[in-house]
């Protein structure tokens, strides 16, 4: 669901950078002190996994892309701070190495997928963990994709209202909320199922190796 470069108005991406900078500072605080030695290779592997699965994208009609995130997995294993930071790095590398996403869209993508995705995943997981852990993992992964998609659709959909010429011609993204909400969210209801399967698979692997916090 990357927002591509060039579609977000500076009136949106500059304040988003300020917000994301605060969040990145908060997430990176005490990073090396808080990161246990054995966590480092696991974090590197799962970050690379998120990078790899995120590159398998299909364009969705609303002007963004559909793909699995991997952020729920990062959040469930490493917590939301590390997940947000790691996913922001994934987005940065994808934009610079493959032109997927972009530097102007980076803060919005990071806040939508990294921050909202990781916190929603963890919230749903904690809410449902007591009843059935596998179900909680599946719901967390699916929920994180759908809520991230909702945030992306909202940001994209407000662009024509924020930046347009006097005759109403858009300057950045052309479609309003009536198009972006269904166009972005509906495909992600299905993509979320793929995310859920992947997350459950790797979660079980991680649990069998005792990577998962108690």
């Amino acid at each position, binding site marked *: 669901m990357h927002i591509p470069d060039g579609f977000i108005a500076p009136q949106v991406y500059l304040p988003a950078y300020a917000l994301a900078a605060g969040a990145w500072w908060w997430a990176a605080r005490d990073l090396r002190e808080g990161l246990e030695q054995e966590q480092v290779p696991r974090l590197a592997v799962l970050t690379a996994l998120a990078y790899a699965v995120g590159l398998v994208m299909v364009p969705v009609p609303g002007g963004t892309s559909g793909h699995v995130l991997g952020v729920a997995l990062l959040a469930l294993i490493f917590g939301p701070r590390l997940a947000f930071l790691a996913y922001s*790095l994934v987005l940065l590398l994808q934009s610079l190495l493959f032109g997927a996403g972009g530097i102007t869209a980076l803060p919005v993508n990071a806040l939508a997928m990294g921050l909202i995705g990781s916190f929603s995943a963890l919230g749903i997981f904690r809410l449902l963990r007591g009843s059935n852990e596998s179900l909680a993992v599946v719901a967390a992964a699916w929920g994180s994709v759908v809520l991230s998609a909702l945030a992306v659709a909202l940001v994209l959909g407000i662009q024509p209202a924020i930046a347009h010429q006097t005759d109403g011609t858009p300057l950045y993204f052309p479609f309003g909320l009536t198009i972006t909400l269904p166009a972005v969210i509906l495909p992600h209801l299905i993509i979320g199922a793929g995310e859920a399967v992947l997350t459950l698979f790797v979660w079980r692997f991680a649990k069998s190796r005792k990577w998962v916090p108690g």
Partner: protein
Amino acid sequence: MSPRQWLTAYLAAVVAVSFLQDPHWLAAGLVLAITLSGRRRWVLLRRTLLSVLVFNSAVSLGYLLIASGRGGFSGDYLLRVNLRVVLLVFLGLWFVSRVNLAAAVSFSPNLSFVVTLAVGQIQAFKCVLRDFRLAFISRNPDRPALTDRTHHAAAQGQNLLEKSVHSASEVAMAMRSRGCFDD
């Protein structure tokens, strides 16, 4: 120019381009960037066009259909948005082709630490995936059944994670022995 100066120039150019609305200025910026980017310019341009092709086509086509239906079509808009996207992506790919990313972010120990680990891991992933793919092809002269492919993919996925953790552990140990974890 040092990597840090490249980073600063790149970020300044990105912000400036995002404010430009006149397609003529955007086209001039693209021509300038292509001219200055040296001998790899056509490779970079090709990669740029390939990476934006699908998404920009989807947005442009969608806009064409919807705006034409509503009677508010603007050719200037299509030109502006496509030129802006191509220029921004070209700048990004040019920047990465000229600058070592880890060196560019060396002002932040945390950032360079994470970038080094992740970029190294991505390279390791690419090698492992290529090896797996080639091994699978060489062992299956005929196309295997879907069930076999599913089982194989699951086993490969698990093996991939094991192998990746092992290689990432080695990278982390190498970084530790070189003082990367020390302040």
